[in-house]
């Protein structure tokens, strides 16, 4: 036989009901031999009944009073505990807040000092930068003006050679008198050979010629 405790402690119930020994299962109807059995009612004398009633009523009243007393006490303690804890927590919170505010102010002061210093440096740097830029700009402008004036001077000098209606005839004459041939060839050494019909002198010969010339 498997012990009852082992069966009861199982995780999944394999046997749904464990009956006591020598007892019928719950789902069985009344035994045939017990169908017409009429249990005898307890006979209590009137005196005893009254006394038991009185005693039991007394007991219930007493117990109710005691239970109520302790229940009320418990509720009181609970509520006082709750209120006390809430007061404590509020006080703690206020203290924490004070501390936080102080710390924040300190930090703010530190940061402000740092900022002042940084701002000073930044301002100085900015001024320097601006001055430098202004100087650069001035320099640039001056250079531009110089360049322009030089150009003007050059053009003024060149203007002497310009062809004007006065000397147009003379220029035409001069051009006709000195025709320029732009056709030329260049060899590898960069020598220009003007004209279409210029005979090419051999390099060696030319070199020799040059050597002899010098």
């Amino acid at each position: 036989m498997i012990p009852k405790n082992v069966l009861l402690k199982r995780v999944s119930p394999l046997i749904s009901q464990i009956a006591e020994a020598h007892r019928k299962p719950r789902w069985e109807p009344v035994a045939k031999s017990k169908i017409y059995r009429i249990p005898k009612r307890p006979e209590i004398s009137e005196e005893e009944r009254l006394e038991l009633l009185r005693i039991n009523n007394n007991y219930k009243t007493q117990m109710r009073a005691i239970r109520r007393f302790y229940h009320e006490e418990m509720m009181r303690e609970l509520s006082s505990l709750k209120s006390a804890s809430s007061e404590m927590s509020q006080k703690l919170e206020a203290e924490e807040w004070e501390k936080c505010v102080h710390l924040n102010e300190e930090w703010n002061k530190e940061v402000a000092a740092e900022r002042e210093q940084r701002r000073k440096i930044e301002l100085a740097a900015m001024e320097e930068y601006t001055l430098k830029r202004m100087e650069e700009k001035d320099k640039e402008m001056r250079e531009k003006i110089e360049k322009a004036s030089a150009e003007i001077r050059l053009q003024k000098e060149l203007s002497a050679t310009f062809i004007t209606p006065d000397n147009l005839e003379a220029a035409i004459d001069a051009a006709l008198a000195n025709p320029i041939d732009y056709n030329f060839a260049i060899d590898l050494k960069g020598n220009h050979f003007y004209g279409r019909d210029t005979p090419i002198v051999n390099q060696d010969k030319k070199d020799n010629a040059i050597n002899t010339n010098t």
Partner: protein
Amino acid sequence: MTTQVIKYVGRTTNFKGKTLWEIVGSLKNYGVGRIIVRSVFNRYPEPSFMKIVKVETCPDEERRRVRVWVEKTFRGRKSPQLTEIYRTSYKPDYNLIPKDEEYKFLEAVKSNESEVILPNTIEMPPLMKRFIVKDHEKKGLETIKEYVLPLSYNHSPNRVARIAKGDEKPTVKFTMGLGKPASPSLYEGIPLQ
């Protein structure tokens, strides 16, 4: 339906009488105006009875039951509202009062004026008295001067005795001890207190 010779079968019962339909169904006009009593309420010294005001029969499926509205008087106190009897109407515990005896019940109600006032406090048990002093010392609470417990009662519309309000003087007193025995013959030869 109604048999004169009663033969009891099976378990015994405290009920004594007929079902309400057995009484009401055989009366003229369904017994409106007549007085019935529940025999289990005879245990009380004060009269408890019901005067039928209105009757409604029930369908065949509920042949043991009947719906009856009554003026209820319980333990000499008449309830202000009508009471409906339906769920308990099948109980074979109702008795019809003959017309010439009705005056006894009606008179008894008028004469019932005495009032019992229940206390709202009770003295602490002796061990608790000593315990509570130590307990309060330990918890740092102020010590109790009066060793009394507040009493609480179950609320019921059928309550006969009144509960004392405030400083009213109660007519009965509850104690933590054995109290005065209801039947002293049981305690013969035993020293009480």
